[in-house]
């Protein structure tokens, strides 16, 4: 009896679902994103953004009269899974383009799949290795750590700072940015007098900061890091009263950082952030203003959660892709690829994107805004 009822229920459910699914094929866009797992704080807003925007685009009539069919897989941050999903997207789902690869690890694992299949792929991960050297079918939207370093060093130079101390997280983000910064620091005539590290789960960084404090000649401190580390560094920094400018990285550019570090300890901290973070502070004539304000409002309405930079990466990737499909007037992967490479002056949340055969990122330093924390809020320093 029970069994029969369940079977009836299941088959009627299947019937309803069957009717709900569109019958004809649309523009198939694939995606493998780390919605769950250790990188979920990146992947979750990315997936939400893609779903929201695809719905929005389809409601407005789709692209070139065709609806977008988003096929989204959750790889949980596991490169092996991402690779399996990538193969499935290419072989079974037959998508025309792919957005995804939340982390550098998953992105690097799936790049060969799309390069072999000659399907355009827009990565959402940070590392410069994804687009350097340039691969014909691989693009990305997030700015690189090196650009964040350059932005910070530019600001230091402007303020006459030539000798700094560094305290970096030993996790992937901190170590990578530390390396990138040291590669270009010479171009700005800045010297690192003290170079300290901490582990991502450390509870107290006063020993490292005490050593930086006792080093004569240090004019500012830079903290490349991610997660709770930079908030604890900022609190310890205030505790020890170092009295020097403290630079944080784009890794903590969020309102949550001010809350975690405490407004008092975070006062005066400088960091490079995107326009999205300071949407309401942008001047009226800023080209990014309308884009970031619209995305922020839509995202916060749809999800009830504050907007994040990471969701912005997915926003830009989809906009670039849709723009390319429109210009190509075709859904042939090779035509889309050529059109993505020809992206010119597309205003996104991370910056204004102009790609070329040599540059598959298309952002310059203006993508970052130098911000300062004042009275528990952000202020744009230019």
């Amino acid at each position, binding site marked *: 009896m029970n069994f029969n009822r369940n079977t009836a229920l299941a088959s009627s459910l299947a019937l309803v679902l069957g009717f709900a699914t569109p019958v004809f094929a649309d523009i198939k866009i694939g995606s493998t994103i780390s919605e769950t797992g250790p990188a979920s704080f990146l992947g979750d807003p990315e997936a939400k953004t893609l779903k929201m925007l695809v719905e929005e685009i389809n409601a407005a009539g789709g692209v070139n009269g065709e609806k977008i069919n988003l096929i989204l897989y959750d790889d949980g941050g596991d490169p092996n899974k991402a690779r399996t999903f990538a193969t499935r997207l290419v072989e079974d789902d037959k998508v025309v383009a792919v957005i995804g690869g939340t982390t550098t690890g998953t992105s690097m694992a799936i790049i060969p799949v799309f390069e072999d299949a000659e399907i355009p792929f827009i990565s959402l991960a940070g590392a410069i290795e994804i687009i350097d050297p340039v691969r014909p079918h691989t693009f990305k939207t997030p700015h690189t750590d090196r650009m964040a370093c350059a932005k910070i060093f530019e600001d230091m130079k402007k303020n006459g700072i030539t000798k700094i101390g560094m305290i970096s997280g030993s996790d992937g983000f901190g170590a990578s940015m530390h390396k990138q910064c040291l590669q270009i620091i010479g171009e700005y005539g800045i010297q690192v007098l003290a170079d*300290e590290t901490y582990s991502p*789960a*450390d509870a*107290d960084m006063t020993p*490292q900061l005490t050593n930086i404090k*006792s080093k004569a000649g240090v004019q500012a401190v830079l903290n490349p890091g991610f997660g*709770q580390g930079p*908030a*604890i560094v900022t609190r310890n920094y205030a505790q*020890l009263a170092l009295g020097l400018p403290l630079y944080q990285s784009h890794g903590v550019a969020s309102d949550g950082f001010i809350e975690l570090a405490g407004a008092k300890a975070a006062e005066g901290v400088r960091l490079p952030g995107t326009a999205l973070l300071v949407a309401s502070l942008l001047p009226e004539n800023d080209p990014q203003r309308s884009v970031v304000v619209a995305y922020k409002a839509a995202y916060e309405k749809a999800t009830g959660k504050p907007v994040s930079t990471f969701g912005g990466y997915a926003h830009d990737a989809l906009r670039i892709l849709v723009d390319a499909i429109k210009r190509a007037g075709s859904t042939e992967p090779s035509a889309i690829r050529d059109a993505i490479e020809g992206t010119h002056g597309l205003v996104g949340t991370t910056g204004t994107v102009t790609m070329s055969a040599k540059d598959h990122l298309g952002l310059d330093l203006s993508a970052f805004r130098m911000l300062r924390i004042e009275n528990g809020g952000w202020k744009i320093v230019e």
Partner: protein
Amino acid sequence: MPEFLQFLLSGITVGAVYALVALGFTIIYNASGVVNFAQGEFVMLGGMITVFTYAAGLPLPLAALIAILATAAIGVALNTLAIAPARGAPVVSLIIITIGASILIRGATQLVFDKQLHRFPAFSGDTPIAIGGATILPQSLWVISGAFAIFLLLWLFFTRTLIGRAVLATANNRVAAQLVGINTNFVMTLSFAMSAAIGALAGVLVTPITLTSYNIGLAFALKGFAAAMIGGMGNPKGALVGGLLLGILEAMTAGYISSQYKDATAFIVILVVLFAMPQGLFGSKSTDRV
């Protein structure tokens, strides 16, 4: 000299955090011989539940109390639903069950709460206290006193109370303990409730310093476990000394040698201690106490 003092204060602060976690391992280990790898999740739950009840508008002490009681209830549920049904299984299987439980708790927390980092205000403000040119935050004093208070209570519990001795007896020989009239099921339930409550209290005390998020438990559990192993698993004195030793060692390495080698030094010392004294610094006494 101010540098040395600053390293020492940092080491004691971090060490007290490790000690608090290590103390939580003690009771369950003493009652069952199981190293409870979900102990870090209890610490995480203490912090996370406090964060959300506090954000809902409750005063901090009440929020903390709710967090401790709720975590204790989760500890009891863990025992009733996962450990008790596998009673006959070898200790290794039970340890693996606790690892599974920790993954479950972590996953449930990110669904019930969220994936963000959180903190709540320190109990007595954030104004650093200056001691001889070095500084310490008032919250560190709370953590240090918390560690000592729990150590004292546990030490009294195991040496001065009948029920504490019953816990030790249960670990030593469950059948013999039952024969002399000890309700071993109750002892197990009690030990999980107490361990979870101590873990949650640790979470409440350390969150203003370390911050909290759904995935912070594993790091706590590993450092707390290391501290407990140095001091001797199951001995409250060992947990306290082991935690402080580990913290001070890390701070001194970061201060005088290099912050790069901080974790490596800690692990080398653990290896040396365990080679020389496999039971830990205070371990051998506790094994034949009953």
